[in-house]
């Protein structure tokens, strides 16, 4: 299993910056292009690349399938909980003013951040789930097959 040395080293270098970029896109979405969806996809790519270059088992040791499944559900819950919270505090569903009644603009900021976080977590979970579902069905390919 010592082949593809260059690929392995470069991947290890890249994964860190891919994740960092995903977080940047996630939390800087209010100022620059991008948001939860794009960030979720980029974050998922970091794990998928790890799974492609190393192996599915290695990737699943880092991020077990049950965690990924829970992540997919957790994101929707974060999103919906934001809405339900504002409902309980006495505003409309998903009215972000509820998060900071004195400064509505800040409330909007927090609300968008929370909601985008929910989207990002769900998208990461679903993308990695789909990848796991596809690759766990394949026999492990030897390099000659390509």
């Amino acid at each position: 299993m010592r082949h593809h040395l260059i690929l392995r080293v470069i991947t290890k270098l890249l994964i860190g910056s891919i994740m960092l970029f995903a977080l940047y896109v996630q939390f800087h979405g209010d100022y620059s292009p991008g948001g939860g969806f794009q960030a979720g996809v980029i974050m998922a790519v970091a794990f998928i690349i790890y799974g492609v270059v190393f192996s599915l088992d290695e990737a699943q040791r880092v991020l077990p399938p049950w965690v990924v499944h829970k992540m997919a559900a957790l994101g929707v819950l974060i999103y919906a909980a934001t809405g339900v919270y504002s409902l309980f505090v006495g505003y409309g569903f998903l009215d972000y003013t509820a998060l900071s009644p004195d400064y509505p603009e800040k409330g909007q900021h927090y609300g968008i951040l929370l909601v985008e976080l929910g989207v990002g977590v769900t998208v990461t979970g679903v993308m990695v789930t789909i990848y796991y579902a596809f690759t766990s069905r394949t026999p492990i390919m030897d390099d000659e097959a390509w």
Partner: protein
Amino acid sequence: MLVATALAVVRTQSLFATAMLSGVFSLLSALLLVVLDAVDVAFTEAAVGAGISTVLMLGTLALTRRFESAPSHSPAIPLFVVLVTGATLIYGTLDMPNFGSATAPAQVHVAPEYLERSVHEIGVPNIVTAILASYRGFDTLGETAVVFTAGIGVLLLLSGLRRRRRNKREDV
């Protein structure tokens, strides 16, 4: 270049090349979207179209054969349908306003209102995010639920199949 890539996708028999070429196609359309100033959409297209779907296609490829099988029917009827649809769509674009026109319906309907209101109502510089997460929060919640449902669907279909096959093997 988009057309050339699309033709290449149709012409090649190797499915591996097809998967790679469709990734190229997505990247090119992402560039097109950047030219149209839709940076957020271009971002998504590049990440999903060129990144994830290429990987998923390769994953599917490993499950199936490497080359296309010869078509079992004549290409005349599909070609006719494609040509008619294409001609209708091109005829439809003749009515569209010119590129960058300030009086286009998209510029004069709700867009100016969002542009004016979001600065002091939301205070977020990226108006796309403001519309998506705040004004259209319900829609985005629905979209997130759709993504979640899609993931569950894939999971049920693929892992269910595996279990059934295992059962069958035990029967034999």
